[in-house]
């Protein structure tokens, strides 16, 4: 049995004018680390709120651990952990007070499930008497995770846990998630950062309320249908305009210092040819390589196909 099931879920706001979630279906297996990848406003938060029984869907059914999200919401509330996107704890309570409060709220004690949060909590323990408002972004996030875990949930919902947190903390956070997965907890996490997609076992790419693709990151990348080239030159802006204006170019997007390009109807483009062709056009320091797509390339392609 799947831990989380969404079956043709639709959710609209403002009397149907704004569609936040549009006919979404997906399943998450027990013990899986599942990522919901998409930009702001794609409908990630609405999906999480439906699953955590905070919102009622208009159409479709959803269930968590076999319990219906509408009818059996009490059972679900006893069994899941949830970290909302803008969750910021009680700023005026200390670290220890926050944790104690949430433990009691969920009818448990810190001691009872300490083993589960031990590794994470040890890192913030030196600051246990500090007010949560005075913690750094990374430490707040660790505390929030502890609070969401303290009642030993079977499924953990994390809505954009890494947004606005620096790289170091983000890395540590994903490492913590991998550890939690070892303990058998099903984790569903959302993120707007495409580079975090590969850290999940399976992902769903979501845009404008619709699921564009659900699979392992590997398979999504493998199904990228065209040859992809990364190109750079001394004057990146001129390179961009030149390539965009060329009729053979199918897509051309900036990726850091490189441009990622696909061509129309050239099944076997040679990087060497491409380089020469660009040099003929007066570009200096040209570098061309054929590359494997990233999740972001796939996302853009799926977005444009939709």
């Amino acid at each position, binding site marked *: 049995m799947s831990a989380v099931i969404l079956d043709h879920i639709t959710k609209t706001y403002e009397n149907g004018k704004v569609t936040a979630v549009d006919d979404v279906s997906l399943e998450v297996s027990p013990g899986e680390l599942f990522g919901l990848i998409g930009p702001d406003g794609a409908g990630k938060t609405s999906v999480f709120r439906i699953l955590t029984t905070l919102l009622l869907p208009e159409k479709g059914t959803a269930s968590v651990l076999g319990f219906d999200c509408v009818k059996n919401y009490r059972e679900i509330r006893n069994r899941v952990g949830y970290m909302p996107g803008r969750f910021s704890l009680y700023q005026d309570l200390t670290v220890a007070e926050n944790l104690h409060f949430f433990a009691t709220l969920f009818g448990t004690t810190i001691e009872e499930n300490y083993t589960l949060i031990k590794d994470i909590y040890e890192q913030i323990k030196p600051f246990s008497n500090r007010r949560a408002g005075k913690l*750094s972004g990374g430490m707040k996030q660790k505390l929030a995770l502890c609070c969401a875990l303290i009642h030993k949930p079977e499924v953990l919902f994390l809505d954009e846990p890494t947004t606005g947190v620096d790289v170091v903390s983000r890395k540590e956070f994903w490492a913590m998630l991998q550890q939690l997965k070892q303990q058998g907890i099903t984790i569903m996490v959302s993120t707007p950062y495409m580079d975090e997609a590969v850290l999940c076992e399976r992902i769903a790419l979501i845009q404008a309320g619709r699921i564009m693709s659900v699979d392992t990151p590997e398979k999504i990348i493998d199904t990228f249908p065209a040859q992809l080239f990364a190109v750079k030159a001394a004057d990146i802006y001129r390179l*961009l305009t030149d390539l965009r204006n060329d009729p053979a170019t199918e897509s051309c997007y900036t990726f850091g*210092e490189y441009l990622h390009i696909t061509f129309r109807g050239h099944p076997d483009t040679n990087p060497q040819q491409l380089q020469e062709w660009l040099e003929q056009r007066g570009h200096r320091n040209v570098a061309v390589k054929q590359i494997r797509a990233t999740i972001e390339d796939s996302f853009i392609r799926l977005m444009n196909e939709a």
Partner: protein
Amino acid sequence: MAEKVIECRELTKQFGDFIAVNKISFDVMKGEIFGFLGANGAGKTTAMRILCGLSYPSSGTAAVAGFDVYKQQESIKRNIGYMSQKFSLYENLTVTENIEFFGGVYGLPMQEIRRRSNDLIRTLGLTAEAKKLVGALPLGWKQKLAFSVAIFHRPRIVFLDEPTGGVDPVTRRQFWDMIYEAAASGITIFVTTHYMDEAEYCNRVTVMVDGKVEALDTPARLKQQYQADNMDEVFYRLARGAKRSAD
């Protein structure tokens, strides 16, 4: 040798015992996209405030667009543009009203504002939305409009404080296309961010750790130097040892 638009020498800002910015030195060239990276609390915001003419340094020298940060703050403000993700436009004013307001703030004549505003609305493809409230626009459009407004008075430098967060990959790229275009037209772009993928778009980046500039080079050379695949890893190596962290 390209013209220097920002010159920073041993710039320091101290709050009591706390040295927020510790003797930083760098130059930014005309038309350059200059990334200013650092973890929360590394001193990015403090340094940028000084360069924008919003606060005085404790010691060291800096000139922005040729003006001194101690004595010519007013001239600095007239020659820079500013955009941040937190605040950039008035949500309850229309697109046109926002443009006219910000044009007015910089003292442009009304005729000039009208002319440029019409051009801008046309290039952005917002003709149908010109009379709509900004709050009703999608996030991506707001960001593009905010950037256009920030460079509306043709500043020499534009400061972008964590400009793109959370938009879809296509919109984000359209945004960066605009930045490249502005840079190609000679406007210097100064971006602070802690999103490393944004760093990859910059010509050169600085990484600040604990108030000091720990690294300053092109993304490619930094990646080479730290034997990393991406800026994420470069940053991780540099910032991992950071002692302070705050919001």
